């Protein structure tokens, strides 16, 4: 039986951290309880907050995270035969971002695939890669999640009086940031155990309006009509709707992932949920009666890096995973559950991995 192991990870965030105080100067304040509920103290942007100029772009970040992941795995780019990349904010509608990363890595040929499922994308990508690797089609895969949200935030505040900015527009500026994370997977025909055990995914918003809607630059309306809009791309976040339904998605993701991976919740040592320790999420879980036996069994095991890295969409799972691994929170022998959720059209994906890789020195 071929096992598919995670043998390295890498993460990258651009520039210096941006404090919440600086965001308040740009877009005006939030009520204390709202700001504290978001639980984000810093974020990183690829734009210069003062001018909106791009200091780098999504493909740069994805490439840098990929290089760090390959370094940690002790591999060269040439060892990769499959790249899967998840993003919602590519450099261009086409060509796919994954092929720009392929080019930057110096790979003339390799299999590539791009996924657009937001925060669930990387976990879906891990499962797709697992199937290809287990079946022997490919041997080494790179799964990347990267996100560049700050370019869409800039028009909200550039040249504006911060106090005239609406709270619904302020909140995304406090929440979102940029970054990329990458995970290297390798098929091991001789391994008896370890690695990716199984995964689950489902989109459960077929009867529900979008929690986040990024409008503009697509083909939903004539371009000459779109050009009349105040902002070319408008990020509409239904904060209340997302707050109500995200906990439902998270608890369902956990339960479904356990079932599909055929593991018992008590055997899970750590569980990555990008919003897992956020004040509004924990409050909502209790209010909605969703603090299930499984959620309680994971008490103290749920981890994320949201407060120090910001909300980074597709990058959240691989970036927070990399952060935990390099800090020594995840060690060989740990059983780790990875949960990615996406509040645009309510997509979840979860995977369980028996961790085998020792963290890189230093």
């Amino acid at each position, binding site marked *: 039986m071929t096992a598919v192991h995670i043998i390295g990870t890498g993460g990258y965030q651009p520039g210096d951290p941006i404090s919440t105080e600086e965001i308040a100067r740009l877009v005006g304040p*939030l*009520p204390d309880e*709202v700001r504290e509920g978001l639980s984000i103290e810093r974020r990183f942007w690829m734009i210069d907050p003062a001018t909106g100029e791009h200091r780098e772009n999504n493909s740069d970040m994805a490439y840098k995270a990929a290089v760090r992941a390959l370094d940690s795995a002790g591999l060269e780019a040439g060892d990769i035969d499959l790249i899967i990349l998840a993003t919602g904010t590519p450099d261009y509608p086409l060509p796919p971002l994954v092929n720009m990363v392929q080019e930057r890595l110096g790979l003339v040929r390799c299999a590539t695939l791009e996924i657009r499922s937001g925060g669930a994308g990387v976990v879906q990508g891990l499962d797709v890669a697992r199937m290809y690797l287990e079946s022997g089609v490919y041997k080494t895969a790179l799964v990347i999640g990267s996100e560049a949200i700050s370019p869409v935030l800039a028009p909200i505040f550039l040249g504006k009086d911060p*106090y*005239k900015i*609406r*709270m*619904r527009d302020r*909140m995304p500026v406090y929440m979102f940031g940029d970054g990329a994370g990458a995970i290297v997977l390798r098929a091991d025909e001789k391994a008896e155990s370890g690695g990716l055990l199984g995964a689950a995914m489902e989109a459960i918003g077929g009867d529900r309006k979008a929690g986040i809607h990024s409008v503009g630059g697509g083909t939903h309306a004539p371009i000459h009509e779109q050009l009349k809009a105040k902002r070319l791309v408008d990020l509409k976040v239904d*904060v*209340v709707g997302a707050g109500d339904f995200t906990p439902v998605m998270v608890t369902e993701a956990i339960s479904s992932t356990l079932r599909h991976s055929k593991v018992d919740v008590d055997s899970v040592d750590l569980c990555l949920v990008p919003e897992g320790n956020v004040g509004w999420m924990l409050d909502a879980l209790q209010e909605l009666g969703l603090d299930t036996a499984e959620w309680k069994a994971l008490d103290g095991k749920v981890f994320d890096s949201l407060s120090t890295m910001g909300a980074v969409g597709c990058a959240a799972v691989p970036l927070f995973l990399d952060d935990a691994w390099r800090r020594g929170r995840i060690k060989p022998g740990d059983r780790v559950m990875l949960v990615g959720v996406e509040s645009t059209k309510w997509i979840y994906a979860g995977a369980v991995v028996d961790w085998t890789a020792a963290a890189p020195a230093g």
Partner: protein
Amino acid sequence: MDRNTIIEAVNEAVIDALGAETDEVVPEATLLDDLGAESIDLLDILFRLERSLGIKIQAAELAAYVQGGIPDEEFGDENEIVSAVGLAQLKKVMPQIDTDALTGKLQATQVMGLFTVDNLVGLVEHRAALAAV
């Protein structure tokens, strides 16, 4: 605090929080139905009033003020239609409503849809008077 100061602050808060045009924000305009406010915008309006007038009103207090401390089971019947007792309370804080026309028809969930810019001025006046005591 005089009524004109409050009216001016409420108008400014509503205009900025909703991105509304000045001529839309008239005393009789309802915040939710006419001006399209959602719950996050109500939070925004209250936060702006806290900063301009120094009067902090929690979002939850808005509904409590409208209901006037009447318990849910007295305020509405088993189908959540607002009772005569409930309507009498609503008339106090929203004097513009036609209680005869609403008798037996008004669902509890529709109550906030009747709340106008002028009613918000009334709430702020009420809170300012309490603070002054």
